[in-house]
């Protein structure tokens, strides 16, 4: 893991003091709420429906046991005993008091954490593949680059008052687990024909009310040039992004209006100048220095297949099911990547209690696990687990209510906080997720359905990524009544696509039945081991539409 040196430590401390002064000026009335707003947002502090919400950065989703314990402490001391993991690998607390926030930040600084740039119209916390450093299909760990970008973008003087927020993600594997093409900018680590590693850069992806899949703006950027390239993209955006309409202010709108060719030309123009100045060159030694922090643990030579693991699979049906569903292939023999589902049947997606956070930290210590990850799908991940330890780990997770065997299945639902918390929302998301989860609770049925990603947003801002859901659900408000629109065929993975709207919205009491009818249609239409997404792509929306609206008074 990255560790702060004296420069990082002093910086974060000073940043806390700076924010404390801003809060004092707000409380004294010197700063108006209008003036305070962008300042607090740049430190992750929102004002929501009922209270402030503090969003804490988990850079590229990596946490230590010590940090996990600090999050538990914050949940206990300053909040109502739980935290909520978000689709950008952060954690948010929904009930802090404004006067406490500087103290929370000070506590966080003691474990090398902060809330920097988790909101506001600046470069946001950088996200990365949650299987980084562990996945078998990885070219290179994306986190060293994410850390290099984090440092460059931290309090960047030129890009703190952008037209709108700016999200960057980094991935380095064959499978895209970071929703790269739905980011303002994304970097994919690739190899060229000569076998050298470099970066493919995408820009202009995004969700919200105008979803776009990102375009390639840099085919193969050299490693040493990446910050110069990103700075070039930021310059083009800061100078030309629209500021007259917040719904048209993201870089996706600029890219779309300039056209890809002109966008690339403008970026190249800026890039050439910055590159020539060499001010942002990333020397090989710097890349190596940062990469060292992310060195994987020394993998033991383990028996593979693991006898303990196989024996437990034969003896315990629950363990067997969980290990079928929640494990991913690790690059080291005898190891596995574990997804800890934060989607218990009927639960709130992404929530974790302070007891669970503390207990997970203890479990990490017991099994010598240095890090835990937050996934953008609102789950946690243990990246490097000895397979022989899995039976004991599973037993402990089961005691904690953290062994739901549903990773990637229909009840592994992403949902935004929705109208239960958020003042932007038009409709509730969490209760819909809970009821869908209950409806599809039967594990046998879930496994028969297979991979199916349901994503729910309570408004057009799409924090629940509904555009990228195999089944996307969008909450809308029609004259004070909540309705839910279905979208089918979206994907946030390497085969990125935007879901298509099925038809008119369903009422709160109809939506779960409608989803079930859509899933039944898939089960009838699928061929062989075809996933839901592939069936939708093959047969189109029509059969789903017919079935979903069967019995409706009018024809669509």
């Amino acid at each position: 893991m990255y560790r702060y040196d004296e420069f990082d430590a002093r910086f974060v401390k000073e940043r806390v003091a700076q924010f404390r002064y801003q809060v004092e000026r707000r409380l004294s009335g010197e700063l108006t709420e209008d003036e305070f707003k962008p300042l607090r947002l740049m430190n992750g502090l929102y004002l929501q429906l009922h209270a402030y919400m503090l969003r804490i950065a988990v850079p590229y989703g990596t946490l230590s046991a010590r940090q996990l314990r600090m999050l538990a402490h914050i949940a206990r001391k300053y909040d109502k005993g739980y935290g909520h993991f978000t689709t950008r690998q952060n954690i948010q607390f929904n009930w802090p008091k404004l006067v406490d926030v500087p103290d929370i930040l000070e506590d966080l600084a003691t474990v090398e954490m902060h809330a920097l740039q988790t909101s506001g119209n600046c470069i946001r916390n950088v996200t990365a593949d949650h299987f980084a450093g562990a996945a078998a299909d990885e070219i290179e760990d994306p986190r060293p680059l994410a850390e290099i970008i984090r440092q460059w973008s931290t309090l960047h003087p030129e890009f703190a008052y952008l037209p709108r927020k700016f999200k960057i993600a980094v991935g380095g594997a064959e499978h895209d687990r970071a929703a790269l093409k739905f980011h303002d900018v994304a970097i994919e680590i690739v190899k060229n024909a000569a076998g050298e590693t470099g970066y493919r850069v995408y820009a202009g992806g995004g969700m919200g009310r105008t979803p776009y899949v990102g375009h390639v703006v840099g085919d193969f950027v050299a490693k040493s040039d990446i910050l110069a390239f990103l700075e070039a993209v930021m310059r083009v955006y800061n100078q030309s992004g629209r500021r007259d309409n917040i719904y048209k202010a993201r870089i996706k709108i600029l890219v779309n209006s300039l056209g890809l060719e002109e966008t690339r030309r403008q970026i190249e123009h800026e890039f050439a100048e910055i590159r020539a100045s060499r001010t942002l060159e990333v020397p090989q030694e710097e890349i190596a220095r940062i990469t060292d922090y992310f060195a994987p643990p020394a993998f033991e030579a383990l028996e593979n297949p693991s006898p303990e693991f196989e024996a437990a699979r034969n003896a315990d049906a629950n363990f067997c099911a969980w290990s079928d569903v929640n494990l991913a292939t690790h690059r080291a023999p005898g190891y596995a990547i574990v997804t800890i589902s934060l989607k218990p049947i009927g639960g709130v997606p992404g929530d974790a209690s302070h007891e669970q956070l503390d207990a997970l930290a203890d479990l990490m210590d017991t099994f010598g696990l240095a890090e835990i990850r937050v996934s953008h799908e609102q789950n946690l991940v243990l990246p490097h687990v000895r397979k022989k330890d899995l039976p004991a780990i599973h037993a402990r997770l089961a005691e904690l209510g953290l062994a739901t065997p549903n990773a990637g299945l229909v009840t592994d639902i992403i949902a935004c906080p929705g109208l239960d918390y958020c003042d932007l929302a038009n409709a509730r998301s969490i209760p819909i997720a809970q009821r869908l989860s209950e409806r599809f609770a039967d594990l046998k049925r879930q496994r028969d359905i297979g991979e199916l990603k349901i994503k729910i947003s309570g408004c057009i801002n799409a924090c629940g990524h509904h555009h990228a859901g195999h089944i996307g659900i969008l909450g809308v408000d029609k004259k004070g009544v909540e309705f839910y629109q279905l979208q089918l065929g979206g994907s946030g993975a390497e085969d990125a696509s935007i879901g298509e709207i099925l038809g008119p919205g369903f009422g709160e009491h109809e939506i779960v039945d409608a989803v079930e009818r859509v899933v039944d249609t898939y089960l009838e239409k699928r061929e062989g081991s075809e996933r839901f997404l592939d069936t939708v792509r093959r047969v189109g929306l029509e059969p789903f539409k017919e079935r979903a609206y069967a019995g409706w008074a009018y024809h669509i």
Partner: protein
Amino acid sequence: MRDGLTIYERSTREPDGNTRMSLIKNGIMAEDHFQSVADDEPMPVNGTIVSLARFHRDREEYLARNAPIGVRLKSDESPEALGEDVHRLSVVVLEFPKFRDGRAFSWARMLRTRLGFTGEIRAVGHFLYDQLAFMKRVGIDAFEVQGNITLEEYRRAQGEITDVYQPSADGRKTIRQLRLGRVAALRF
């Protein structure tokens, strides 16, 4: 109230009730030697600042004046519109119509690093105490303040964060360079 700073001492109203404009330049209070001239106003004798539109309209006449001259850019006007003429100017004024409009940060940096402008870059309009350090970093060296920011606060703002992570127009050593320096020092 921290570090001896009293918020209420900052209000500097004239006896007539108007707010006094003052200029902080290079970290001290400075005389303003320039007069902002509207597009239809006659030119005074001394230093002047005109809009980009007037500069384009009266360019030759303006450049031929025997007094220091400046141009004021709106937040949607790039300094590249000044071309080589930028080097004939003593001051470029960047407008902040609303503190959230961050374009001037790019314009200032561009004036310094691309156009090589060495004259005064002055910020006017709506900006906050909390932006002063960023403004200085991108190359703004003069700040027109209306009693909302005192010199003491200006200095405080510049000292809030000691080190920086990225290069900008101020030529400061970045944390990465400082780390390298530390390693080099350890080797001796």
